[in-house]
């Protein structure tokens, strides 16, 4: 691995967003393949994700490294797109907290863990209307859409998301993930979603399994 990519990895490992941006730009100037740079960055985040999962690192380590990784990833993805290419990843996941709900943290943890597992994550933020999820999904042809809701009153928006996907005739083209404190397996079944993540680890594991069975099927 080039020295610059190692420095990029070190920047992510030490939660240095500015350093990660700088090293990413430097890598591109040196003519390094952006796909290779994304893989190098993902490798660090995967290591941090593993260490978080087995209790060696903490949540703030994971989320901070995720932010540094994102700073780098955005530059690299722009570069790939500008060159007319497409990023190679485990899959594209559109994430957001539903309309009327501003709970950000669970979704942020999931975004970091998905990135650590090699997924391309598009985080739409909070208070995302169903139509915005669907528009983004259609724009980038995502593999999965994940909607977080932390209130009993806002989880209804997860149902609306499924309904809008059905109305657009694209329900079968996407894996729908739902999560949040009031969300249960029964709710997932009732609204016709595919995955209910009890927590971020569970969501990533179930997404991996669902993708594999979809490929096998």
């Amino acid at each position, binding site marked *: 691995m080039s020295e610059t990519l190692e420095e990029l990895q070190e920047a992510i490992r030490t939660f240095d967003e500015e350093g990660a941006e700088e090293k990413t730009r430097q890598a591109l100037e040196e003519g390094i393949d952006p796909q290779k740079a994304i893989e190098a960055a993902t490798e660090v985040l995967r290591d941090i994700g593993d260490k978080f999962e087995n209790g060696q690192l*903490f949540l*703030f380590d994971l989320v901070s490294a995720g932010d540094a990784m994102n700073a780098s990833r955005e530059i690299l993805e722009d570069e790939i797109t500008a060159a007319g290419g497409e990023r190679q990843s485990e899959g594209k996941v559109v994430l957001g907290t539903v309309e009327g709900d*501003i709970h950000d*943290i669970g979704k942020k943890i999931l975004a970091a863990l998905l990135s650590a597992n090699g997924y391309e994550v598009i985080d739409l933020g909070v208070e995302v209307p169903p139509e915005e999820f669907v528009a983004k999904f259609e724009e980038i042809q995502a593999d999965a859409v994940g909607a977080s809701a932390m209130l*009993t009153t806002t989880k209804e928006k997860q149902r609306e998301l499924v309904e809008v996907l059905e109305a657009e005739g694209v329900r079968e083209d996407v894996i729908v993930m739902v999560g949040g404190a009031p969300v249960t397996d029964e709710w997932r079944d009732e609204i016709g979603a595919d995955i209910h993540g009890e*927590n971020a680890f569970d969501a990533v594991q179930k997404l991996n399994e669902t993708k594999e069975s979809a490929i096998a099927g």
Partner: protein
Amino acid sequence: MREGINGGQLQLLTDEQVTAIHDAALQILEQIGLKVESDRALELLAEAGAEIDREDDIAKIPPYLVMDAIETAPRSIRLSARDPENDLMMRPEQSFMSSCQGPPYVYDYESGEERTPTREDVRDSIRLQNELPNIDMTWGMFTLPDEPMLGFIDVYELFANNTKHNCIVSHYGGDLTGKLVEMVEIVAEEEDQITNKNLVTMYNEPVSPLYLRRETTESLLEWTGAGLPLISSPMPDMGATGPMTIAGTAAQGLAESLGGIVIGELNNPGTPMLMGSLPVPMDMRLGSHCYFHSERMFYQSFTGQWARKYGVPVFGTGGISDSFGADFQLGAETAISLYGSVLAGQNLIHDLAVIGSGFRNSLEVLTALDEMVGMIKRVVDGVEVTDETLALDTIEDVGHGGTFLSEAHTRQFGKTELFMPDMLKKREKQDWSHNVALDDAQEKVARLLDEAEPMALPEDVDRQLQETMDEAKHLGKELAVL
């Protein structure tokens, strides 16, 4: 009048530290400001002298407005019950106990599993609390899933099944809050023995960090506009929605609570309000909320210290656990947090029996904790030191190597000097079995629910309440369509 507990023996922060946190909170309000998503509230703040950024809805609130609000808020609040003999005076020197609504699951003690609550569970929880001697205020204990009219169902069931307690309800969006006020007024007007209309206290939670959302603020304005008592208390997550440090989260939480107090007192000067802050740290290994943590006692202490500093009663938290069931952790965490809340001098102590990190509520645990409150009352009652209790004559009578068992003095104090718990056993070891305290609590729950005879609502009051709920349901649907 219900008697409170004279807590406040514990002060873990120095006066200088409390003042420094107070100063930091004033700095936060003046320099960083609060985001307030309500034109009405922003206008009130602007008129009073706050600096408003209309682009981002940020209100920078100068210290004098905060100090005026604290001065204006009443020091003691008469909270009414349908039965006025059970009214209570909420004030900085007294502690009162309450459960909490919020948990989405019932902890089913019989199976050890959780299940989704029904309206029947909410009703049972209210009927039980009405019978428990050491619970002072009642909240429907479960959040009904998929029930947008939850708060209305709560208020109705509270009025219909509880006569001894002031009720608590969580906040609602603007116009719906007006309908809740109507329900309170219907009961207050019809039942002429009621001294004032403070029958229901509203819990109103600013979002951390520093954000008063539209719904929260509208309900605050409606409720305080009607002069009804309101709790302004945030739940910052240390390290996530608040700073990682205890002092920093204390300052931010105080600023958030005071923001609500300022708006309420500008809206209706002298309206009864409670301050508070309930930091819930995030477990950085799991990303889960820790309802219990050993440092909770610091937060308990300095909110108790705020109450006495500001002369405004505070919301508190005790009798909670992150354990999901009947185990050592449940006993340890509920006991430590309950003792901490009283000794710290928190006033409206809620959350009793909230377990499983806020996911479960349990009638059995509440019943066991009701007894624990009795033990705490005994402790804070203190030691009586008189000639009679010093017992010099009796000590002399018994002399060297004798026994006190047959002394009149022993019979005189034998039943009163020590609290005798029913559930925490003192028994022979051959009688020991698992979870004996909660087994007893389970029997007690069944017996109390069987015996409960809450005073029925007059028929016309019942009918008016139902009609108001129907109107609210209609209004709720209209709002949902908008």
